[in-house]
């Protein structure tokens, strides 16, 4: 099992790998979008602009399938950011992983890496630096928490009466169940994404141990992982929109 390069910084545990990978993902997404929207043209769009417009229309399709497009318009940016960020994050761990092996306590930026603190003679720890950020349950939990806060906030803000009423329906005694249902949403989001990507990376590590014999398996699994990464980004985005739609829009004749 690989350890994370965590350092203690003023009482906080700072996971350098997560910080690095989040930064890399964010930077890639940002650069992609900025480059794609640098030379926008109304009459004669370039290839990158066409690609971005395709992505936007794809996200609009997702939103349109879960709620009224007029009400869903403000969420296009959110959906775009989510799908691009999660997709890039999922794919980052596929081409490579960077792992260092430590045999004694190591320090970085003058701080000791926690996983290597107790290493004695003959022990070793493998520190995983480069991975998919979404292969870390804390990161996916962060994303899910954003969605959770957002959907409840939007529900309270735009649809307060029905949002609150929903908790005591169909019977007031089901209040605890409804709360659990609400809480289960972000947990399911976080764990689904984390487990899919983490399992993919574990399997890549295992195939790597096969050496050259593993090349065909690796090729197949890499391809499948790209598919899984895209699929998980899509699922995360569409679930986000479904939840927001459920919370904010009260449809006549519906029980919540």
């Amino acid at each position, binding site marked *: 099992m690989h350890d994370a390069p965590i350092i203690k910084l003023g009482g906080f545990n700072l996971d350098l790998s997560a910080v690095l990978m989040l930064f890399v993902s964010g930077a890639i997404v*940002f650069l992609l979008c900025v480059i*794609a929207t640098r030379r926008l043209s109304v009459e004669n769009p370039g290839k990158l602009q066409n690609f971005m417009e395709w992505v936007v229309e794809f996200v609009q399709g997702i939103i349109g399938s879960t709620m009224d497009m007029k009400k869903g318009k403000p969420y296009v940016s959110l959906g775009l*950011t989510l799908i691009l960020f999660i997709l890039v994050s999922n794919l980052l761990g596929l081409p490579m992983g960077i792992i260092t092996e430590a045999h004694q306590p190591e320090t970085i930026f003058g701080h000791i890496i926690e996983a290597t603190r107790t290493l004695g003679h003959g022990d070793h720890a493998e520190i995983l630096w480069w991975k998919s950020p979404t292969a*870390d349950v*804390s990161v996916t939990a962060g994303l899910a928490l954003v969605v959770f806060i957002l959907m409840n906030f939007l529900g309270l803000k735009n649809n307060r009466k029905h949002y609150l009423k929903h908790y005591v329906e169909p019977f007031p005694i089901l209040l605890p169940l409804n709360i659990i249902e609400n809480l289960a949403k972000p947990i399911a989001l976080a764990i689904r994404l984390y487990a899919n990507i983490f399992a993919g990376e574990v399997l890549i590590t295992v195939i790597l141990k096969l050496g050259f014999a593993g090349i065909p398996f690796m090729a197949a699994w890499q391809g499948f992982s790209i598919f899984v990464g895209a699929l998980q980004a899509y699922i995360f985005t569409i679930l986000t929109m479904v939840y927001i739609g459920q919370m904010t829009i009260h449809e006549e004749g519906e029980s919540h």
Partner: protein
Amino acid sequence: MTILWENILITILAFGVLYWLLNKFAFGKLFAVMEKRRELVQNQLEEAKQTREQATVYVEEQKEALKQARQDAFEIIELAKSNSSKQAHDLLDQAKQDATRLKEEAVRDIESERTKAVEALRGEIGAFSVNIASKLIEREVESNPAEQEKLIGQYLKEVGSRS
């Protein structure tokens, strides 16, 4: 699987910053241009529709004009046909009249010529008769003048009635 609340916080912050940056530097422009493009396509569709409608109207007009032209042409041809037949009829009539007139003239000419000839002949015969008579008279008048005069009168009458 350990959950670090610091990681959760960092992720939320990173995601928020990314969302803000993308909105500020990329998506705003992109959405505006996409809206413009949508309008452009809409306008072009509208224009195409209008052009098509105009074309339909134009084609209808052309059809109408063609129909009118055909009818006109038909009328002109009909008129020409009736004109030509009338003209032919007129010509024929004219020719018949001319022929009749010519025939009548010819008949009149023949009549007058005959009359003239008869007159001339009668004159000549008269003269010849006188001549003959005078010759006969020279020989016979003296013997029987009354008988001779009667003979000449009868003779002249016969010539006259025969003409």
